[in-house]
């Protein structure tokens, strides 16, 4: 019964895409659209198959995902402890909040020029941008999450004998978790877009680069393929990883406080 439900919702979700694909397959040839303007479905699929076979597509996807993974993990390792440490004191957190909000605004893309100047082209600069995009937002959200844990809940834990380590693991981290997860989700969104933008100008491998180079040669089928891959990747990441994580923490615990 559950399976039927899942299949049914999967069907409803994919139906509009199926319609779109059919329209695509029919309209492009019908209107004789110049392939240098917009590719037909067949050539995109072809480009996709070729890309897989010669490994270039996997190479680009792998490079992009690796940069995201490294940048994100580094950022989280620094941001979460920092956010907790700052969020514990109401004086510190209210003082630092404007600072972090300011830097959250600059997250990601605005750092591209300075990153390429400091790190040159390539892996370092791009990972820095991703780190940046995730770091400020996650720190800010962690700070917010910890500082909005009601004082009485922390007092309750103290009066039940919680020491500092227990306070951290049993109260501060779980309490801030919904905000942290929201921060990760937003930060990754910025990071993903920053990644594509940075790859367009600062490197020679990756999905952004793939798109940009294809433009030079008017290979629209590669561009459209790249766009679809980008869309699918992010959808997968968001729907399969981030959204369930968010749902699991926020809805389960009935905490409605969100940044």
């Amino acid at each position, binding site marked *: 019964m559950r399976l039927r439900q899942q299949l049914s919702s999967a069907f*409803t*979700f*994919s*139906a*509009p*895409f199926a319609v*779109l694909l059919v329209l695509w397959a029919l309209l492009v040839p019908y209107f004789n659209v110049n392939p*240098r*303007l*917009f590719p037909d479905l067949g050539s995109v699929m072809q480009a996709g198959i070729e890309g897989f076979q010669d490994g270039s597509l996997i190479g680009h996807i792998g490079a992009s995902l690796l940069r995201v993974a490294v940048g994100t993990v580094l950022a989280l390792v620094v941001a979460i402890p920092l956010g907790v440490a700052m969020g514990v004191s109401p004086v510190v957190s*209210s*003082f*630092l*909040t*404007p*600072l972090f*909000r*300011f*830097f959250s*605004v*600059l997250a*990601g*893309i*605005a*750092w*591209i*020029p*300075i990153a*390429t*100047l*400091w790190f040159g082209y390539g892996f370092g600069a791009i990972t820095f941008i991703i780190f940046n995009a995730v770091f400020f937002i996650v720190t800010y959200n962690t700070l917010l999450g910890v500082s909005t844990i009601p004082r009485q809940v922390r007092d309750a834990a103290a009066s039940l004998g919680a020491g500092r380590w227990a306070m951290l693991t049993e109260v501060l981290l779980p309490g801030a978790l919904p905000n942290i997860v929201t921060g990760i989700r937003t930060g990754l969104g*910025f990071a*993903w*877009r920053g990644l*594509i*933008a940075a790859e*367009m*100008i600062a490197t020679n491998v990756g999905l*952004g680069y793939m*798109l*940009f180079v*294809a*433009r030079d040669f*008017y290979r*629209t089928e590669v*561009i*459209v393929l*790249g*766009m*679809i891959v*980008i*869309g*699918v*990747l*992010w*959808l997968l990441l*968001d*729907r399969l990883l981030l959204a369930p994580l968010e749902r699991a923490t926020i809805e389960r615990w009935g905490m409605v406080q*969100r940044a």
Partner: protein
Amino acid sequence: MSPLLQAWSAYVRLTVRWPSIASIVPFVPVAAVWWMVTELELFPRVFLPGPVEVVRSFGSLVYKGILPEYLQDSMVRLAVGAFWGIALGIPLGILVGTSQRAHTALWPLLLFFQAIGDIAWLPILVIWFGYGLITMTFVIVYTVIFPVVLNTVLGVRSIPITMHRAALSLGASRARILWEVVLPGALPNIVTGLRNGLGYGWRALIAAEIIVGTSGIGFLMFDARRAGSVVEILLGMIILGILWYIVDSWILAPIERATGQRWGLVTR
């Protein structure tokens, strides 16, 4: 009473009267640290210039008329893009929110196209429209439209059914309900969507200017990078940050709060 307590007391009274001061004061130590770090030459001046140079550059660019012109270009693009994003996004959001059929047909497509992101469209846009205003506007509209639509849909759907029923039982037609119930009811969420949308649109603008621009703040930063001049890059980033901070904290956030409170609805 010790002088420290007196000073703290004065500070608290000051911030109660002018809350904005509390938003500015935290930046003072940052600026001070920045200044010290550059004076101590911890990094080569070429890599990290100090606040003095940035201010000087600000002055000279304003004097040469470059900065005001670029600022204006950026603002105009953002305004045009935001306008169309909102003008298209709200009706679309209301449609998807109210009609189950529209929702089923369009929701997956909305999610997918949002996932592609505005930046990925730049290459094909450049092929179609070149490097001009249309490309820029498209990117901004594309970015703004999704938060607006999604938040509008959320707002529409979170209106309690009892309100619809009340309106119906008082003789309102479907069309009247849209105007009298749906729009006001969804307004707090719509404003949130506007705020988010403008935030994303702002970033999209900078990205577009960096990658394909010929003027504007983003272009300023990228051009400076090509010339190897970090000063203008930092200047650009600071201007971006301050501008957005001002617009968001002092214009958009209060509007969002006001609509939420006015309608007595708890949005977030």
